[in-house]
């Protein structure tokens, strides 16, 4: 499996390659794009892009000199016709630079790219929210070479898709940055923090009610309050445990390291580290973490040992035990179920 890591500035490239990344990805917002369409529309991360096509060309060259590939992200949820034409122009320049792949979500852009640059590798972004084999097969027929699965997918589903469409590479999230809503079904912007940030982190107060107008019973109100509190705890984990790290700088937060053995069995081709907008140290630490666990797996270490190694990376086993920090919490559930007999019949039937 390959490790795919994000960059937003040139000086990250050599360090991430040395740390064990196999592929890198970046966005670009040329000044002309910002002038025509605004800075927020090129892709989903207005603060995490290279500033110019010249910088992109330099990034491609640097990546290749360091033995890694560099993919270009053009994955806004939707582009206008004018934006697709502009994006095609960027893609032509990128091909001339020797760029390796474009990551796209908008099916219109995807078709346009496949027609205009048939030799260019197209990776379907997680923003496309493709989580079934028929969708994967359609994208393959349209010219895609890789599908990046969305975050909210199970290991079994990932393996089923990989098995059903063997000529499409499958990439799955392994570390950092959890969305609450599905990226392809979230029609909002990541506002500046002072204005609320991502909508899922914004300060919304919930006034629960019965849809038919009946008043809530005290018992139900209490259950809803407990659920809200549990949700807020989950949210803290989902957003990198309050964006904290270990003393050594290893990031907490959404993590699929324990799932690497399952990814291997399931035919997953690449492991995605998210967080284009994060600081360089975080990206570097993330690549090192994934490399360490992936090397253990590749060296034939038993799955249980790989999982133990993954949990041992950060001295916070209580975080792992909650399952709230997991991209694939069924790993925790299964480990727990294997460790002790089920006591609750309803919970056993729940899944």
């Amino acid at each position: 499996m390959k490790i795919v890591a994000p960059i937003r500035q040139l000086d990250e490239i050599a360090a991430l390659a040395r740390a064990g990344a196999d592929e890198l990805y970046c966005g670009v917002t040329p000044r002309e794009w910002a002038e025509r369409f605004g800075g927020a529309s090129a892709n989903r991360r207005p603060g995490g892009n290279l500033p110019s096509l010249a910088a992109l060309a330099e990034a491609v060259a640097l990546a290749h000199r360091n033995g890694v590939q560099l993919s270009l992200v053009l994955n806004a949820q939707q582009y206008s016709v004018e934006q697709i034409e502009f994006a095609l122009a960027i893609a032509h320049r990128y091909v001339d630079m020797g760029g390796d792949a474009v990551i796209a979500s908008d099916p219109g852009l995807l078709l346009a790219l496949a027609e205009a640059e048939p030799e260019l590798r197209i990776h379907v972004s997680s923003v496309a929210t493709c989580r079934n084999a028929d969708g994967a097969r359609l994208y393959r027929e349209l010219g895609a070479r890789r599908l990046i699965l969305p975050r909210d997918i199970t290991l079994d589903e990932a393996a089923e898709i990989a098995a059903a469409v063997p000529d499409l590479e499958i990439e799955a999230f392994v570390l950092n940055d959890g969305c609450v809503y599905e990226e392809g079904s979230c029609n909002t912007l990541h506002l500046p923090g002072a204005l609320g940030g991502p909508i899922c982190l914004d300060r919304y107060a919930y006034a629960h009610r019965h849809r038919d107008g009946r008043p809530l019973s005290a018992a139900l109100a209490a259950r809803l309050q407990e659920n809200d509190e549990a949700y807020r705890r989950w949210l803290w984990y989902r957003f990198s445990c309050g964006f904290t790290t270990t003393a050594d700088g290893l990031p907490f937060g959404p993590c699929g390291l324990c799932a690497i053995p399952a990814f291997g069995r399931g035919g997953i081709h690449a492991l995605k580290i998210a967080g284009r907008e994060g600081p360089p140290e975080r990206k570097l630490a993330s690549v090192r973490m994934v490399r360490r666990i992936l090397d253990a797996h590749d060296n034939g270490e038993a799955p249980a040992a790989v999982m133990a190694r993954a949990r041992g990376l950060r001295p916070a086993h209580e975080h792992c035990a909650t399952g709230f920090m997991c991209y694939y919490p069924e790993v925790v559930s299964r480990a727990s179920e294997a460790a002790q007999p089920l006591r609750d019949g309803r919970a056993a039937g729940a899944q």
Partner: protein
Amino acid sequence: MSAPLGFLRRPSAPASASVAASTASPPSLAALPATGVAIAVAMVRPRALEHLGADTPARAAFWSATLHDEALAAWLAPLRPTRLRVGSEFCERLLPEPAQLARTLAEASVAGLEVCLLTPVASPEVLRALDALFALLPPGAEVVVNDWGVALRLRERHPLLQAVAGRILCRMLKDPRLGNPQYAPPAAHGFASPWTRRLLARLGIARVEIDLPLFASADSFAGVPLPLGVHLPFAFVAKGRMCRTAGLAREGPERFAARPFCHHECLGLAARTERTRDGTHDAWETLHVGNTVFCRHSAANLATLASAVAAGRVARLIVPGETL
């Protein structure tokens, strides 16, 4: 909202007089009677279908009780619904069981309604479940697809059913926190792209559906290559696969995880949501139902839709028949 939103500012933001949130007073719904447009009613669990086929006053009472908007209820009431939409666009747990769908087909037939099946973004398990449901639908029945994989499956395995591109496939910025049209990035439906048109044709999609943009204008309905359905009075803002409400039914590591399990708590519960941040004022009322955030359109935005209906740009209105 000033400096921090500079990155959103459109250099050539049109100062369109038709923007719904502009200071100009739009015509009211009452001034633009809904004629020449069909109406479809969406219900996760259909019941009391007789209200839909009743006379105008009874329908007005139904819409008023369901939507809590007297003006909108009066505007919709003259239209006799012709189509019942069953299932869910947002949640794989809300697909009907085959027996439920069979019952609904029979009841809808009695009520003189055609049935359209709503389908969500699909996991492999959902795809398998859909095959059994598709098999129950009569030839020509509509299926709203919100997943390209579902569209392909429909085309390949159930070619006698009619695919409709749902609003989740129509990506459009709808952030209820952006109350100033100057800062709202362009929100076009995207179906005008020739490449998207080719994809729609390839998949045999014959109709498309959209939410109203938050700042709708006459342009919002232009360039659609197929008959257009428009949802009202709510736009969906965001949906997760994770469901906050389902957390009531779950515990342990997967309380808020992707693997679906719940007792359909969302059918009975919803939440009005309001930002508690100082100095922020959302322009749209927001509510949270199950895994989805919705916002309610302003009267001005609905009036813009009414103008589009009057101009013949909308083939079908789509209205929830259950209170959110």
